[in-house]
């Protein structure tokens, strides 16, 4: 297919997309939060949803092993462009399949090592969400959902980069370990506002390092997320979020690596705009808090994201 004909086909798809039969957007309590932040969840009447979220991540420094914030020196640059292609499918009543495939492009400049660009597919995530109590399904009762998921090491881990000339590690797109996750989400939604609390347990499985052959296991971790949002005007929702990620010490060759636990808190803002009953534009800003003791053994980053979501229903 030539470039002009690809353009015509793309334009045709876009026209078809926005011309799909739709029902009016409902101003119900179930709707405010579903598309507010990231992948979110399916609206109660949607059969599936797909999305693309592109994020620019800038590494500004790190929290050291004593919890002190240290800004990176002038000779260091660490940028990442991450695009997540994701999908949600309504399998049966209240059961949703979620898939997220990240595509990653890195740029890193590190002192006398020079700079490098690399990337590729990141670590694939897939899971199931069971809405035990659907949001908005019961009067005066918050929604409650359970989820299980896994992360597959489809990305390129650092230990596989040794000896391939990628000295700044720009081609690293994953951690190299399978991860099993289980989570719970509690969500209270009114007509114009919502509050969501989520807690996820992540359990990485042991892996064998490609560079040394040693067995390694990332520590189990908890990820907590609190999101509160409200409708500014019709179809425009503003949300604020607080997140806290914690990970236990790494185990290497059967021994726990001291001080390798991670604490990574952050805050963010998100704006979502349902431009069409099927289509939502999303944007968000997430950042660490660059203050001593508000992090441990973790990079300090600012992430700006822009997303497009299409939800299908008849």
């Amino acid at each position, binding site marked *: 297919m030539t470039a002009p004909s690809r353009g015509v086909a793309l334009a045709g798809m876009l026209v078809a997309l926005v011309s799909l039969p739709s029902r009016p957007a409902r101003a119900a309590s179930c709707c405010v939060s579903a598309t507010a932040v990231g992948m979110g969840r399916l609206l109660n009447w949607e059969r599936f949803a797909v999305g693309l979220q592109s994020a620019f991540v800038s*590494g500004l*420094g*790190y929290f*050291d*092993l004593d919890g002190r914030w*240290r*800004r*990176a*020196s002038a*000779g*260091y640059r*660490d940028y990442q462009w991450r695009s997540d292609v994701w999908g949600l499918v309504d399998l049966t009543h209240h059961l949703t399949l979620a898939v997220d495939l990240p595509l990653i492009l890195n740029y*890193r400049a*590190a*002192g*006398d*090592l020079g700079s490098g660009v690399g990337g590729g597919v990141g670590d694939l995530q897939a899971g199931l969400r069971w809405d035990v109590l659907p949001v908005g399904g019961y009067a005066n009762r918050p929604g409650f959902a359970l989820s299980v998921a896994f992360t597959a090491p489809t990305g390129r*881990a*650092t*230990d596989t*980069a*040794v*000896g391939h000339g*990628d*000295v*700044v*590690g720009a081609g*690293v797109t994953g*951690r190299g370990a399978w991860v099993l996750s289980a989570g719970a989400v509690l969500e209270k939604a009114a007509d114009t506002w919502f509050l969501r609390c989520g807690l996820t347990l992540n359990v990485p499985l042991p892996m064998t*390092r490609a*560079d*040394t052959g040693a067995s*390694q296991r*990332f520590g189990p971790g908890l990820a907590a997320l609190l999101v509160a949002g409200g409708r500014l005007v019709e179809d425009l929702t503003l949300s604020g979020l607080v997140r806290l990620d914690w990970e236990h010490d*790494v185990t*290497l060759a059967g021994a726990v*690596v*001291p*001080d*390798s636990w*991670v604490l990574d808190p952050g805050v963010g803002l998100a704006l979502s705009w349902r431009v069409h009953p099927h289509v939502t534009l999303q944007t968000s800003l997430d950042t660490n808090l660059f203050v001593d003791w508000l992090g441990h*053994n*973790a*990079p300090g980053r600012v992430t700006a994201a822009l997303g497009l979501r299409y939800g299908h229903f008849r």
Partner: protein
Amino acid sequence: MPAVSRRSLRSSRPLPLLLGALLLAACGGADPVQGTLHVAVQTDPDPPVLGRNAVFVDVTSADGTPLDGLAVEVTPWMPAHGHGSTEQPIVEALGGGRYRAFPVTFFMVGDWQVTARASRGDEFGTSVTTYSIQ
């Protein structure tokens, strides 16, 4: 020059170390983690920087005699991300119990732990030093 801090992991946990030392003293044995050989580490440049560095490892016996002919490994490790470096250091013996590992490559900012391990038969010694690379 970027500010770099260095500390021994053993000095960061006084209570467990004290208990461990008491236990060792009571048992009369060698430190099961650090071994019987004494391993001292020095970097070039000192303090180390973002990029490639050399690490000098001085190994002595319990009575302070420099030891040659040992197997020496130097391993950089970034605990924040759970990974090592993108380059494998090569160790050469300089004589007089001194060994040089190069390149010890810190390709990201953050805290790096450098483990130096020297061994000969059942004898070994280990040193773990943390460097903060900005």
